[in-house]
Each structure stands twice: as C-alpha cells, then as structure tokens.
C-alpha cells in the first residue's frame, strides 16, 4: 500500500514538474523558431518570412494573400507565412512578443513615434536605411516619423490625415450650401449653429475611448504652434510655450458651443451603432473628427456595408492669428517594420510591399492612402482621394501626438484631455500632465 502510494506521489510530482517545465519551455521554442529561420538562410536560399498584418477580412485579406503568393513565386525557396489578425488582437500579441523579446514576427506593422522608439531602444528592430535604401528614397516624404537617430526603422505604406467627415445630406437640410475644404473656425461655428437650428446634433465624439477627444487638442496644437516648436518641446520635455495652453483654450471654446452628441463622455470611438462613427453612419449627427479609416468604418456600420455617397471631408478649421502653417495637418499611418533577427528575405518582402505594383493594388482597393508616389493616383474612392492633395500639399504632417510621445506620456495626455472634455481639467492641467509624465519617464 505504502509503496503504491509512493509511486503515485512520484507520478503526481512528475506531472507537476512536467507542467512547470512546459510552461517555461514556451519561450524556448519561440526562440528556436527564429534561429532556425536564420540558419536556413545561411545554408541555402530557403527562408521563412513570418508576416503579421491586420487586413483580416474580405478583399484586403485576399489581396495580401495574393501578394504573399506572388512574392513566393518570384523568390523560389522563400516561404511567406501570413498571419492576418484583427487589429486589437494584433497589437496585444505584438506587445507581448516585444516584451518577451522573442516570437517577434519578421515583418509587422508599426505606428512610429515613441512606440517605435521603445522597440528600437530595446534593439528589436532592423535598421533599413541601407538595406532598403531605394525604397526609403521613394517614400522619403513620409519616413520622418519612422526615423530614430537618422536611421529609418520602418517603411510607411499608408499615411492619412485626420479631418472632419460630414454628412452632405444633413448639411444641405440645415441650409449649409457652401462647405469649405478648409474652413476658418468662425465658418465652422456657423455649421454647428445651423445644424443645431435644424435639430441635428452637429458632432459625435468617442470621448469614452479618450483618443478621439484628444485629436481635437492635437489639432489645436498643430494650428496654434509652429511645427518646430512642437518638435523642440518633445525633444526637451519643456512645453512652456504659450501655444500649448492656447490649443486647450481653442478646444474649450468648441466645447462651450455644446456641439457633441448626448452622452459623448461615455461614447465609444467606432465599435457598433452606438459609437461616434456609428452615429455618423446612421445619419444621427452632422460630422465627426476622424482619420482616413473613417469611410471604411462608416461603410462597415451601414446595413448595405457600402461607403455612403453623402460622406464628405474637410480639414480641421484654422484659427485667427495661429502660429502653425495652415497647410500643416495631423495624421498618421502604418509602416512595415522588420525584426532584428529576421532573414534578409524579410527586408526584400517589406520592400516588395512598397513597390509600385503592390501599392497600386492597395490603393485601388481603398485599403489606405499609399505613400509611393506612383500609386497615389490610384485611390478608387473619391472622398478618400480628396485627402491626397491636402497631405502632399507641402505642409508638415504631425503624427497623432499620443503615438508620437509613446504610450506612457501619450495616455497621461489623453486622460487629461478627456477630463477637460468632462469639464474637470483646464488647458494648463493638460500641459502639466504631459510634462509630469515625460519627467517620470526619465
């Protein structure tokens, strides 16, 4: 009996050890995978390129599968392992991989700014300045936000702008016949008043998710501050220039008009019919401040799943006496980054994704706003194509400031801006919160 018992105990202990070992082994296997990839490249021409992207539905997914297949055909011996993921899932998985420092895909999406900087500082990304010099040359107008210490670490394939998407029908009903492409703030207030008079909620904003509200403040900064002032402030962590407070005051002035949808403090950004984008899609508000993704999101939230004809776009209004160049805009994009231990074929693949051919197909399917000048004329959707001349009109494009500053400072800033939307913080508080978070980051 005793012996039997002891045997069983040993089994139980053994199982426990196996369990623990198994848990630890997870990391090891992932490591091995990447090293395997490398060694095969060294031996022969064979390589596997693991590629993560977020076009996980419909035509976009099919297109990217085709792109991968074409690349494999043109490069015998190279296998592209495509992982199409839902956007949020991809971000979570990427973050986990970056923290573990292993299991990082060979080619993946980066949003640039402070987030990219963190990955570069941790030595996780490959310097593409030399390895992909031709491509970097082609898209040089957009590589600024993906450059750390004069080295380019990711190849931007889509770069869009934030602006007001509006419902042409509702504007017409409210008697707004003349909608400017780049209105002044007074013209903009005119739209708000006329929409209100017509019984339409002028604006929707997903302040529950914070960043949509924060976009107003970012644009305030782009308008009130010179581009160089912002760059210098980010560099030094000193935001004492008056223009940052003025940006907050501009937003407060907009808030004082009470233009937003009821319950905007608890409204989500773009998920479902109750979100800010949902309200625009279901024709319940006149306009919404959003990026180049909006036609796709609004289309997806409509019953027929088509981008509505009534969707129009105009730039964020300009302010009297503003220090920022009126042609400067705020926006952002997505870039392909290559991990540090990826095979050389991964760089070739990233470059292929930026080629005239792939970018043109990308534009034709309205998957984004291409950066390769050869493809910019191919954007199919007219409303979306409207953004290209504004983007390429000579002004600077400031990256979404939260992405620019990295998660730690970016979220502290967004939290404070959301508080101001609730009437619980002042323009000075926002500046103080940014400085404090920047200082805490060291």
């Amino acid at each position: 009996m005793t012996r039997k018992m002891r045997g069983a105990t040993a089994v139980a202990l053994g199982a426990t050890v196996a369990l623990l070992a198994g848990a630890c082994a997870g990391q090891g296997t992932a490591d091995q995978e990447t090293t395997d990839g490398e060694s095969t490249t060294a031996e022969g021409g064979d390589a596997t390129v693991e590629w993560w992207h977020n076009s996980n539905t419909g035509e976009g997914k099919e297109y990217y599968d085709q792109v991968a297949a074409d690349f494999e055909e043109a490069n015998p011996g190279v296998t592209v392992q495509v992982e199409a993921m839902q956007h949020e899932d991809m971000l979570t998985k990427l973050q986990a991989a970056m923290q573990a420092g292993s299991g990082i895909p060979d080619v993946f999406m980066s949003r640039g700014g402070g987030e990219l900087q963190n990955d570069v500082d941790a030595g996780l990304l490959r310097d593409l300045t030399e390895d992909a010099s031709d491509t970097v040359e082609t898209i040089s107008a957009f590589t600024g936000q993906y450059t750390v210490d004069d080295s380019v670490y990711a190849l931007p394939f889509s770069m869009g702008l934030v602006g007001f998407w509006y419902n042409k029908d509702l504007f017409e009903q409210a008697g707004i016949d003349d909608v400017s492409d780049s209105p002044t703030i007074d013209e903009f207030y005119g739209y708000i008043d006329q929409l209100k008079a017509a019984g339409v909620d002028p604006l929707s904003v997903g302040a529950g998710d914070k960043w949509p509200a924060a976009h107003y403040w970012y644009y305030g900064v782009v308008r009130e501050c010179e581009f160089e002032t912002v760059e210098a402030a980010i560099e030094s962590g000193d935001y004492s220039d008056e223009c940052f407070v003025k940006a907050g005051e501009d937003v407060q002035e907009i808030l004082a008009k009470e233009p937003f949808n009821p319950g905007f403090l608890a409204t989500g950004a773009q998920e479902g019919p109750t979100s800010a984008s949902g309200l625009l899609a279901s024709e319940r508000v006149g306009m919404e401040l959003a990026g180049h993704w909006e036609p796709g999101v609004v289309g997806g939230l409509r019953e027929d799943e088509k981008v509505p004809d009534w969707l129009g776009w105009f730039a964020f209004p300009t302010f009297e006496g503003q220090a920022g160049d009126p042609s400067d805009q705020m926006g952002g994009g997505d870039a392909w980054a290559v991990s540090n231990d990826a095979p050389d074929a991964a760089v070739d693949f990233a470059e292929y994704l930026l080629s005239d051919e792939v970018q043109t197909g990308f534009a034709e399917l309205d998957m984004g706003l291409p950066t390769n000048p050869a493809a910019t004329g191919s954007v199919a959707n007219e409303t979306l194509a409207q953004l290209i001349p504004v983007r390429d009109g000579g002004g600077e494009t400031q990256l979404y400031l939260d992405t620019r500053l990295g998660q730690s400072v970016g979220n502290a800033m967004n939290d404070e801006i959301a508080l101001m939307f609730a009437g619980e913080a002042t323009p000075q508080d926002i500046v103080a919160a940014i400085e404090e978070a920047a200082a805490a980051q060291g």
Partner: protein
Amino acid sequence: MTDDAPVTTAASPVTSSGPAAGATREGRPAAGPSAGGRRAKRSQRRKYLEIAFFVTPALAMLLLFVVWPVITAVQMSVFRWNGRGPLVDFVGLANYVSILGNDVFVGSLVNNLIIVVTSIAIQLPLGLAIALLLNRKMWGQGALRTIIFVPYVLAEVVAGVIWFQLVQPQYGVIDTILLAVGIEPPAQGWLGDMDLALWTVVAILTWKYLGLAVILFLAGLQGVPEELYEAAQLDGASWWQVQRRITIPLLGPTIRTWGFLSMIGSLQLFDMVWILTKGGPANATSTMAVFLVNEGTRSNNFGIAGAASVILFLIALVMAVLYQRLILRRDAKGVA
C-alpha cells in the same frame, strides 16, 4: 489558530477515504509513549505522502499562477519599466509614493469602497426579502427563482454589452420608455453623466448579483428545521415574528459567507466597468483594477501597475482577514 484549521480539514477527507482510513485509526493509539514507534512513524510518513499526493498538483498551480505572479508584481513595483528589456531602473518605493498621491488611484479606491458598501447595503435586504418571498409555497415559484437567477449565470461581458445598449441616451430602451411616460431622462445619458455613472453601474451590478444572494439565502433557508416554525406557530407567533426571531438568525452563517464573497467581488470589480465606461466619465467609475490595467497594458507603466496591484492585494488581504476575524469568527468556531 485559523491557520491550523485548513490542514485538519484538508487531511480529514484523505484519512477517511478508502482503506487508508482503517490504517490511520490503527496507527493512532500506537503513537503513545509505548513500543511500536516505528510503525507509527511509518504510518505517519505515509500520511504525509498521501497529503503530498493530493496537494502537490494544486500547490503547483497555486505557485505558478498565484504566488509567482505576486512575487513578480512586487519585484516590478520597485522598478521603472516600460515592458521592454530587463529590469534595471531601480526606483525603490517611488512608484508607491506616486500612486498614493495620485487622485485617480485614490478616487478608484474610494469607488471600490462605495461599491463594497452599497452592494451589501442594497443586496442584503433586497435579497433576503426576495428569498423569504420565494420560500413561500406559491404559484410560479420555480419560474420566479429561475428569472431571478438568470442574470448571475449570464456572462459578465454579455450582460455589460446588453446594458450598455439599454442605457444609451435618447435611443436606448430605457430612455425611450421614460420619454414615453413623460419623464425626462438625463441629458448626457446614464453613463455619460459624472454624477450618475457610478450609481448606474451599482444598479446594474445589483441586477447582476442579486440572484446569487437570493439563491444562497434560499439554500440557507432549507436548513432551517421545519419544527421550529411549527413550534413558533403553535406559540402564536406572527409571520413577521417568525422571520425575525427564527429565520434570519439561523440564516446568519449563510449571510456572513455571502457578505464575504460580495466584498471580495466588489474589490476586484473590473469587467462590468470596463465594458460600460472604461472607468469614465472623468474617472467617475474607475476602480483599482481599472486603474492598474490602464497603467499597465495601456500606458506601459508596468512599475506603477505593479505597485498598484500590490496595494490592491494588501487592501484585499487586510479586509479579508479582518472579515474572517471579526465576522466569520463565530462560524469558523462552529466548524472546528
């Protein structure tokens, strides 16, 4: 004192299960000062092996998924770390100082305490009343019990999403009904108004968890001996007197245990708040768990999040121990 209790309770099912029980009973008298010490030693060792056999897998899980993360959190909490690379930037207790001076964290803690108190203050009388009502023989008893219990069975996220739609301003079902009967709903909606949001969350939590209280109380009521009721009735006690003097006192242990579960649940509250408001508007509904998720996975301030989780752990531990010592003491004694 209380530490010993789990060991005895854990060991007793082992000894009473199967043939081992006889052996132990045999061994015990021999454990005296007289001869046969070796046998006693052997049986003693076997008992330990038995305990090890049954406890090891659970213990390993506990170490891996509870103890290890707690240690990691404590370690993280004294570093400044953005999630990339090794822990190198030692900051001592700076993270703790920064959290305790952080309005959002303190506000979240207060919200947690409000939810602890209101959950018990609302659900206890309401749950008791419904349980007493449903304990009476009546038509549709089973159906009513089910209806009350359904919200508890529903996944928290599903319930959250449903309620989020119901309380939408203007277009939501609740506002539509209110408008139809001529009551003006709050302009910014139930979740968009800073003064109402927390109470809306409390109301939804009450709807969600009342079922648990009712079902536990009903189970407790089954343990109240029928004879006591009969005796009371013979003595001419009214229904109210019976409830006050017999039912509720005998339901004591159940109520106290439920209170403990409710308190722990309130301290850990996350999912419902995250679905409904993400802690907003203006942090009006933020809880400690929301705070630490915001700081950790959203802002990459893992040091701060680690410190917040340690504080949450300590608060929960202190409250749990105090509750055990002060309120559950009577029940624990009864068991021992």
